C-alpha cells in the first residue's frame, strides 16, 4: 500500500536571498502509512506549524521532496496543488474556523460544494451521515455561532472528512476545548481512524493525548528529535 505521506529531506527557509534568511526546517524525513495516527510534539517555535503547513500543501518547502497519497506534489503547479489539497487532505484547526454564514450541515458540505460547484442531494446525504457520525444530527441546521466550542470542533472534524481524504491534519484540535470536549474530540478522531482507516497527523501540546497515538514525532529546532518507538 502506498504511503499517505512521504517527506524527504524537507527544508524550509524564510526571507530567502536576504541577509536575514532563516532556515526553520532542516531536512525533515517523515513517512506515514495508511491508517497511521501520528502526534507531532515540540516546543513553540520548533517548526511544527511550518511542517504542518507544508504537509497540508498550504506552503511549499524550499527544498526536498513531498508526496501526498502517492502523488508527488513537489513540482505541481498552484492549481494542481489546490486540487490535491481539496481531495487528499482534511483540516481541523484549533479555532474551529467554521464559516459563520452557513449552518453545520452546509459547513460539512462545503468541501464537496467547492469541488463540484453545485449542491446535490448526495452531498447533503453525505454531510448528514458525517454529522450523525460525530453525533450532531440534531444541530445540523444550527449556524456555527449557535453551537458550543466542542460541537463546533466536531463539525470541523466532520467537514475534514467530507472529501474522504487520505490524511487529516489537525493543528492543536483540542487546544481550545475544556477537558471533556477535548477528550470527546480526540476519541472521535481515534474512532474514525480505526473504523475508516483515515490517517491523522496531530500537532498537540498534550502529552497525555499524544501517548494514545500510534507514534509521536518530536520536532526540536527544525529537526525530528527522536524517532518514536
Amino acid at each position, binding site marked *: 500500500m502506498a504511503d499517505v505521506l512521504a517527506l524527504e529531506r524537507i527544508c524550509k527557509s524564510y526571507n530567502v536571498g536576504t541577509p536575514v534568511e532563516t532556515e526553520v526546517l532542516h531536512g525533515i524525513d517523515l513517512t506515514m502509512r495508511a491508517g497511521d495516527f501520528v502526534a507531532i510534539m515540540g516546543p513553540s517555535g520548533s517548526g511544527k506549524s511550518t511542517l504542518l503547513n507544508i504537509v497540508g500543501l498550504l*506552503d511549499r518547502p524550499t527544498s526536498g521532496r513531498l508526496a501526498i497519497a502517492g502523488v508527488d506534489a513537489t513540482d505541481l503547479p*498552484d492549481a494542481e496543488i*489546490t486540487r490535491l489539497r481539496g481531495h487528499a487532505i482534511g483540516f481541523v*484547526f484549533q479555532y474551529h*474556523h467554521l464559516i*459563520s454564514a452557513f449552518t453545520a450541515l452546509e459547513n460539512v458540505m*462545503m*468541501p464537496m460544494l*467547492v469541488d463540484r460547484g*453545485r449542491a446535490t442531494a448526495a452531498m447533503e446525504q453525505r454531510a448528514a451521515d458525517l454529522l450523525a457520525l460525530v453525533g450532531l444530527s440534531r444541530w445540523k441546521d444550527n449556524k456555527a455561532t449557535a453551537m458550543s466550542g466542542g460541537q463546533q470542533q466536531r463539525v470541523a472534524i466532520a467537514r475534514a472528512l467530507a472529501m474522504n481524504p487520505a490524511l487529516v491534519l489537525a493543528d492543536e484540535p483540542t487546544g481550545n476545548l475544556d477537558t471533556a470536549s477535548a477528550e470527546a474530540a480526540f476519541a472521535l478522531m481515534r474512532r474514525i481512524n480505526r473504523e475508516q482507516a483515515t490517517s491523522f497527523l496531530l500537532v498537540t501540546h498534550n502529552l497525555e493525548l499524544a501517548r494514545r497515538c500510534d507514534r509521536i514525532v518530536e520536532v526540536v529546532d527544525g529537526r525530528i528529535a527522536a524517532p518514536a518507538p
Partner: protein
Amino acid sequence: MKRWLPFEWIAALRFLAEGRLQTGFILVGIAIGVGVIVFMSALLVGLQANFVRRVLTSQPHIQLLPPEAVARSLRTEPGVIEAATVQRPTQRVLSVDQWQMIRTEVAARPDVAVVAPTATGSALAVRGDASRSIGMSGVEPATYFSIVRVPDFIVAGEPRLDSDDILVGTELAKDLGAAVGDKISVGAAAGGRRILTIRGIFDMGNKGVNERTTFVALRTAQSLLNLIGGVTTIDVTVRDIYAAETIAQDIGRIAPVEAASWIGTNAQFFTAVRAQQLSNTLIRLFVGLSVAFGIAAVLVVSVIQRSKEIGILRAMGTRRGQILRIFLLQGAVLGFLGSLVGSSLGAGALLAWHAYARLPDGTEFFPISFDPALFVIATLVATLTGVAAAAAPALRAANMDPVEAIRG
C-alpha cells in the same frame, strides 16, 4: 441551500446576508446615488429637450443669406491714397444669387432635412383707417411649415396660402379689427400693393411676433417686394441640431452665400445648453464615483473581517478564481439591488415632480422624459460599477496567503 445556484453565488449571497447592517447601509447609499442620477438625468434631458424645442420650432437651424454688400475702393494702384472714411453701403433687399441651384445642392446633403426658400421684407398693412407696419414672409407652405410649425399655432381659420391669402397674428388681427375671411391691403416699401384675404390667425405666444409677423405665398411676396423669381433667404433644418454650425460653414464654403446657424445666432443659449450637459455629466460622474468607493470600502472591510474564512476556504481546495468571483459577485449584487431601489426612488421623485411642480395655471413646467431605457442603463451601469469597485477587494481576497489568513 439552493441546488441550482453555483457555489460562488451561494457564498456571495450568504456573506451579504450575514453582514446585514453593512449591506443595508451601502444599499441605501447606492440607492440614493442611483436615484439622484436617474432623477437628474430625466429632469435635465426633459428641460433641455424643452428648451431646444421652444427655440428651434420657431426658427430654422441654418439661414442662407446673400453676402453682405461691402464698399470697395476703386483704385488700388500704388501712390493712390484712399479717403479716410469709407461709408458702409446700404443693404438693399437682394435675391440670393442662383438660389435654385443652391437649394438643390443643399437639399441633396444627407445631413439636411428640409430646405425652404423665403422672400422676406417689410410692408404696411391697411384696413379702413388702421394701418400697421408688418414683416412679411413669403414662403412655400409645404417646406416652410415643417421648419416653423405655423399650423400648430393657428387659432382661427386654416394654414393655407394661395396667391391672395395671408396669415396674421392675433394682435395684428385685433389692431386691424379683422377676422378670418376679411380683406386687408398690403403695400411694400418697394411699391407693390395688393388686397389679401386673411386665411388664418395664429398665436405664437409672443406679443411682438403676433403683432408683426405675417405669412404670404412666396410668389405674392416676390411680386410685392419687386423681387420676381428671387428669394432673400434659404431656411434649412438639419438632422443633428448640434452639427448645424459645421454644416453651415460647409455650405458657406461651397456656395456664394452667408450661412448662419442657430448656434452662432443663439450663442448664449447654445453655451447654456452645453454647460448644462457638462454639469449634468460631471455630477453623474462624481455621484457614481462616490457610490463606487462606498462599495469598495464595504467590501474591503468584509474581506478583512472574513480573512480567516477565506483562508479556510482556500485550505479546503477553493481556487483563487472562485474566491475572486465570490467578491466580484457581491459587488455586482450590491450594484444591482441598489440600482433597483434607486431607480424606484428616482421614478418616485419624478412622479412627485410631475404632480407638484406646476405653473400657476396648472400646466407642468416642461414635460419630463420618462424613458425606460434610462432605468435599464442605470441598472446596468450600477451593476458594472459594483463589479469594478469590487475588483480591488476581490483581488486582495484571492491573493491572500491561506497560512497568513488562518493564523490571522
